């Protein structure tokens, strides 16, 4: 069974690139443009992993991450935070609220894919 | 500054000299019925030492060290 990945970012071009990348790797992909949509999709789509942008309107990636972690039904969900703000403190914050990985923009596509595979136990 | 202090010390010394000159016992030395150059000794001594004292005071205070 193909693994499912939810891509959350408010930058359309980044969404396009990630979607293309993940589909090419054989994942089933869904996208969301903001935090609220991300939570809806997470419930409906039941992804195995979320690529989650931090800086978004309406609801930030941190809030989304916290809410997902607070949901027992999403216990196996892996969360990868994406951020353009590469500060140490933000990385720490992301890990502290339960993110499995933290990737700084701009990222290397190869590394991102490798990271996702590792987290899903596919490597 | 230094000069002014020196002046002050000289004047103080002259004051002490004057106190000594114009009082017992120096006074008693000259309190005799004698004359010098036809002038009574006590009279000559007092006026003489007085004048010298004044001259020294003038010298002390008006002298400018160059």
């Amino acid at each position: 069974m193909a693994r499912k990945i939810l891509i959350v970012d408010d930058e359309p071009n980044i969404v396009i690139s990630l979607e293309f990348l993940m589909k090419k790797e054989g994942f089933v992909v869904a996208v969301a443009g903001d935090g609220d949509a991300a939570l809806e999709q997470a419930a409906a789509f039941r992804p195995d992993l979320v690529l989650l942008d931090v800086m978004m309107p309406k609801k930030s990636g941190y809030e989304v991450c916290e809410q997902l972690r607070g949901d027992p039904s999403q216990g196996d969900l892996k969360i990868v935070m994406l951020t353009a703000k590469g500060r140490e403190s933000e990385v720490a914050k992301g890990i502290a609220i339960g993110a499995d990985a933290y990737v700084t923009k701009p990222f290397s596509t190869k590394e991102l894919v490798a990271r996702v595979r590792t987290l899903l136990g596919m490597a | 500054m230094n000069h002014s202090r020196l002046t002050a010390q000289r004047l103080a010394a002259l004051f002490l000299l004057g106190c000594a000159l114009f009082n017992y016992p120096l006074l008693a030395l000259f309190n005799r019925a004698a004359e010098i150059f036809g002038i009574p000794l006590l009279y000559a001594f007092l006026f003489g030492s007085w004048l010298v004292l004044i001259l020294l005071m003038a010298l002390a205070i008006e002298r400018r060290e160059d």
Partner: protein
Amino acid sequence: MLQQGWVIVLVSFAYLGVLFAIAYQADRRADSGRSLIAHPTVYALSLAVYCTTWTFYGSVGRAAATGIGFLPIYLGPTLMLALGWFVLHKIVRVAKANRITSIADFVASRYGKSQLLGGLVTVIAVVGVVPYIALQLKAVSSSFAILTGYPEIVMPARAGAAPLLQDSALYVAIILAAFTILFGTRHLDATERHEGMVAAIAFESVVKLVAFFAVGLYVTYGIYDGFGDIFDRAQEVPKLAKLMVTADTAASYGSWAALTFLSMLSVLLLPRQFQIAVVENVNEAHVRRAVWLFPLYLFLINIFVLPIAIGGLLHFQGGGVDADTFVLTLPMAHQQEALTLLVFIGGLSAATGMVIVETIALSTMVCNDLVMPVLLRWRALRLHERQDLSGLLLEIRRWAIAVILMLGYLYFRLAGEAYALVSIGLISFAAVAQFAPAVIGGLYWKGGTREGALAGLLGGFLVWCYTLLLPSFAKSGWLPEQFMTQGLFGVELLRPQQLFGLTGLDEISHCLFWSLFVNLAAYLGVSLLRAPDAREARQASLFVDAPRQRGELAGWRGGVRVADLLPMAGRFLGPERAREAFERHARSRGFAGLDALPADAELVHFAESLLAGAIGSASARVMVASVVQEEPLGLDEVMNILDEASQIRAYSREVEQKSRELERATAELREANERLRELDRMKDDFISTVTHELRTPLTSIRAFSEMLHEDPKIELAERSRFLGIIVGETERLSRLINQILDLAKLESGRAEWTSTEVDLAEVVRESAASMTQVFRDKGVTLDLDLPPGAVVVLADRDRLVQVVINLLSNAVKFAPAGRGRVAAAVAVDRGLAQVTVADNGPGIHASEHERIFEKFRQGGQDVLTDKPQGTGLGLPISRQIVEYFGGRLWVESEAGKGARFKFTLPLQDTR
């Protein structure tokens, strides 16, 4: 000729006229700034006011009785002048710094500006000096009487024997009073200085020296054949030979030393000496010459004393002629009419000099330290409400002069005959010697207190009264004889001139010993009972540390206005003089005038010292305090002000004030610190935001590039779409970088501007045209409302286009897609060109109206709901541009009702 009384009177008045002319001239010169007396020699000569008729007539009398015994009175001052560099110099400096106007003022000021102390010193000075004034009256009147007998030598009748209205001494007193009033109280000077008087006194010193020298030369070389001849003749007369030596006893040397010491103090402490040497001193440096010139003067005026005395004794053998009159009677006996007249003038000059300066000094003290303090406390007089008190002050002084001279005359009638001239003078010397502990001690010892000074002065004065003044009445028969011989209430131990059985001293030494013993013991003993309080300590340090701290301010606190101080000073000095003084003060501190003068501690101090000149330092303190504390002046208030408690109150007020200021400063500091931290945070945020904004397009670019690079099998359509995104993101990145650089340039002021005449309507039209496609894409309508003609402003055209495009793109960004409406308008209003860009978007909450002009605020959390495509730098940049050209950019909006961005620019006048 001389036997005609009127000739003598005429000559006397002529002489007084000359004196007055000199004084008048000197005053005029002083007013025009070319002081006649600003010369060290004049200062030294004026000090010779020390030599009165006592010297002129009395020394010869003393010499005839005791030989060399007249000399200590002049040796003492010589010694004091040797110390002048320390003592006199210091007193002058202290007095100048504190605007001291008399010796009473000096003592009062030193011990915490005590009115009581000033009053006591005044009383002692007046009582003590009255005999001395009597001496002058006696000398002048008897010399006049003798002169009218010319060429017969007839000793005048006993003092007080003549009926009152035929007593020449009375007329002498009246004339001298009138003359002194004319001389010394024509106007009021804050410094209490009388340049005219000083000039006249210096002149008199020359006159009396010349006159005495003339007699001396005449007697020594005219009548006899030089010094040697006189002394040889004296040796032949056993009685005279004794004069060449003094008694070789301890008592004799003791009284010699006592007189030397007494005169040492007197040359400094006699009110007139203090007046001339300290108050009238125009320049500290003048002391330098006086140190030797004044003793030299004393030396010269004494050279011929003994020859004249011996000459007189030889000539008038068998007595009948008072030795005190030899100076006058010797030339008379040889029918030297002109010389006789010169001598009379010399004696008159010695008397007038003394009387003028002494009574002026005393009247100042009586007025400032005795009468004014009482009047000011006397509520019923309502003096504190009087506008100009200077007239009253002069009036008081005139009366004081008259009363003092009348007291002198009274003493002359009562006790004048019992004593020789010198003995009367010594009574006064002993009185003023009582000031020594308080003055000299106060100058070098900080421990003295008000009570100590009071106790010392009072004790010494009472002893003086008992051992010297009362006996002088007793000897004249005005007190019972038993008082002298059997003591008070018949108690032997209390015999006034053998007090507690002390015998073997002459009456002066006896009095000097007991009075100074009691005085010093009380001064030290009482002073040591307690430590000086704050005010005493402050004054003590002003006096004792004088050479070290010049111009140090006595601390004053409390609110005060120039407008309060000036009228108050005007009441005492006269409005004109006060105003001039204040203006001088303002200029000396580098202010343009009165208006610029701050009402600070220095001004208060100045006003106080200015007033001190008119009414004494103690009264001045009370007056200034009444204004400074803004309280009506009354006894209670005055007592309050003088009370130590008020100082503490003022002090605690000051502390309170200071702590409030400190709190304020702390708050300001905290705020500034907060602001700094905020700025720091903003800078951090800015960098973080810039980083984010730059990384976002970079992320897309890198992702697509890598994918295209690694997977050559991507379809052509995909490939070209991805490349399009890369190009777009690259453009976005460039734009962002350009704007950041643009803003940096604007902010640092390094931007390049061109300023030309620009038609604002044209700018808006052109900007709108370039945006047509954007509007069309989003389905937003754009309405333009432009005036028909040109709206010309002076600006950089491209920059204005940048602003308008920025506003239009913001508007289209926030206008709802499909039904959005944007309106751009140009209008002219009151010399300003105004551009408005309005949209029907979500609007901006009032709290955000300013924040949207901050950098990257668009990225902020609450400002915008949709993430716009802008960089967040457009509005800050636009505002910078508009403001550069002298305009203003702002927004008017309410949430939900759209936004209207407006900017104005000054209209360029094209005509």
